């Protein structure tokens, strides 16, 4: 059984159809990338999978681990093992990073019928993961993402992923706003998470992150549909030729045009 099965997914926001029939299958152990031009629906797909309620599902289905993902609330999806690394991580003044992460870990443990962790057990684990991402300890007590630089925010997303250990990690434009050093650290963090039980979906506009996180499959999303799939070489081809050729190909082939 596949870990994630997206079948003919349609989604609208404010009456505009963004996803127009997406099909995608992801198996545990695989890393896939979704590439596409701006406005193609990449982020919408990522957010729909994380169950953001601003999008209305107008058709299709999504099975996660055999369960109906579209029937889940965001917190249920998270507890089942879906994780979204945000393109724009949200600043939350007044809640410390450490407290936030422990609340999340415990919410998930509680959902799974496991015992909650106290700060004494949790902090060493958190510190260890922070070291991996080269994050200073001061981030423990700082408010979530508040006054973090772009790179710090992205690293914080990967830290959360490392701590929450999801079955499916979706990285939404995680490379945007990162310099090359930060990019390498983030990629390292992601690669350390690759495992036979876990699938990773890397959503990106540019190919450069895929030099560091080599995907098994690359899919090209244009105008709400996946128009081409291939191996990692497809990403290089896109980098070379741009999206224009694919886009014009799609539009040209469309009978409605």
């Amino acid at each position, binding site marked *: 059984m596949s870990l994630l099965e997206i079948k003919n997914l349609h989604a609208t926001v404010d009456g505009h159809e963004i996803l127009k029939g997406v099909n995608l299958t992801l198996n545990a152990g695989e890393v896939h990338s979704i590439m596409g031009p701006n406005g193609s629906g990449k982020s919408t797909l990522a957010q729909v999978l994380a169950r953001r309620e601003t999008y209305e599902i107008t058709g299709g289905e999504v099975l996660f681990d055999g369960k109906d993902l579209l029937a889940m609330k965001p917190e249920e999806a998270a507890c089942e093992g879906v994780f979204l690394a945000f393109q724009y991580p949200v600043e939350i003044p*007044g809640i410390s990073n450490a407290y*936030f992460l422990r609340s999340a870990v415990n919410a*998930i443990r509680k959902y799974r019928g496991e015992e909650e962790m106290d700060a004494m057990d949790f902090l060493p684990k958190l510190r260890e993961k922070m070291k991996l991402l080269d994050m200073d300890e001061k981030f423990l007590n700082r408010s979530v993402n508040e006054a973090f630089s772009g790179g710090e925010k992205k690293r914080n997303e990967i830290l959360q992923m490392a701590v*929450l250990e999801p079955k499916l990690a979706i990285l939404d434009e995680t490379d945007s706003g990162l310099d090359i050093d930060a990019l390498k650290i983030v990629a390292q963090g992601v690669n350390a998470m690759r495992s036979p039980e876990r699938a990773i979906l890397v959503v990106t506009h540019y190919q450069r992150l895929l030099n560091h996180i080599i995907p098994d499959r690359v899919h090209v999303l244009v105008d709400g549909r996946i128009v081409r799939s291939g191996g990692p070489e497809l990403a290089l081809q896109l980098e070379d030729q741009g999206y224009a050729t694919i886009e014009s190909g799609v539009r040209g082939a469309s009978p409605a045009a």
Partner: protein
Amino acid sequence: MTQGTRETNLATATQALQNYAESFSGLEKSAASREPAWLRKLRQDGFARFGETGFPTVRDEDWRFTNLSAVAQTPFRLVHNGHHLPSRTDVAAHRIPGAACELVFVDGRFAAELSSAGKLPNGVKVGSLANEIAANPRAVEPHLGRYLNIQRDAFAALNTAFVEDGAYVHIPKGVILESPIHLLFISVAHDAPTVNYPRNLIVAGENSQATIIENYVSLGQGEKVLCNTVTELVAGDRSVISHYMIERENDQSFNVSTLRIQQGRTADVASHSVLAGGAIVRNNVHPVLAGEGGECLINGLFIGRDRQHLDNYMLVEHASPHCGSRQFYNGILDGHARGVFHGRIIVHKDAQKTDAKQTNRNLLLSDTAQIDTKPQLEIYADDVKCTHGATIGQIEENALFYLRSRGIDETSARRLLLFAFASECLDRMKEGPARSYVENVIQENLAHIADASRRQEQGS
């Protein structure tokens, strides 16, 4: 409103005023034999002033956002002695762990049998104002009623007319109290509407340091209660004083409190208000920075739900040079609750180099909650820095989704975000028993609101 109901309202209001007059003459007769002349004068002036003004209406600029007709029309009676006392178990629920001592007042009167004196440094006096007036009137006379302005506030006048008991706290020069003094005011519900008038006098000597907590709670089910309370706090030169006003009475309660602070030279005073209970609440905080170099922090949080009305009226007077005042009030309003923040700053002619700041931030959790926020700056000196700002917002959907996407359920996520907002006020309180107690009060109230707003959203 029809002519008929208007007449009825007027009739009930007149009846209510008659009640006050009867109560007052009753009190005068019974107190005449035992009280000093200066107190009698104070009392008479108070009642005379109330007689002139009656209760304020919304036509009064200072009461524009708070309709008191429910208070004016209720025939409140004074609670007489001989009432049944709450049990020790009733009181135990409101204890503050770590407090140095705990004074309990039932319907405004000191209840020695429920109080615990604790161990206080030599010379510190914490007890009943009535006892102090009887035993040592000379200590009280120079302060009682000397700072409060009964001309500008009918409730202050009324409280003064009915001065009987409350807390008397005296901290001598140089004494540092490590643990807080807890003053617990219990309003008991009776089978008729009742009013009580706690009157507190806190005198802190030069270089002294102390924390005083006023905690207002209700007991039992019954008719409405009006608690009209006044505290005069005299902070001597270089003293460091924290004052807490915690309002957690039930939804049958009206509470009008006035904290009048008189600050000496380089005195450092913090007023923390936490309004969580009550039907109609008016919280007056009036510091006068009378000595040079004083610092005043006016910090508050109000959490309203259902039909609660929580009105905060700040009047910060800079009367001397080089003083600083910082007002920070945060409001969280849900349901049909209404909040008011009126932040008035007066910088007198001689108060050069004043640095006054005011911030009011509000979260409205429902379409029917309402906030009125009004800064009012009157500056008569030319070399001053005064800033003010107000914000009104909602829980950020982005933040809510972010938390939920990490597995935190919606109610807990809301509670976390509300608590983060409330923490801005909490963080301005020094670590210690008072802050821990306040934190629990806040958590308790926010849990309720987080759930309620979720239900509401699902219902809509």
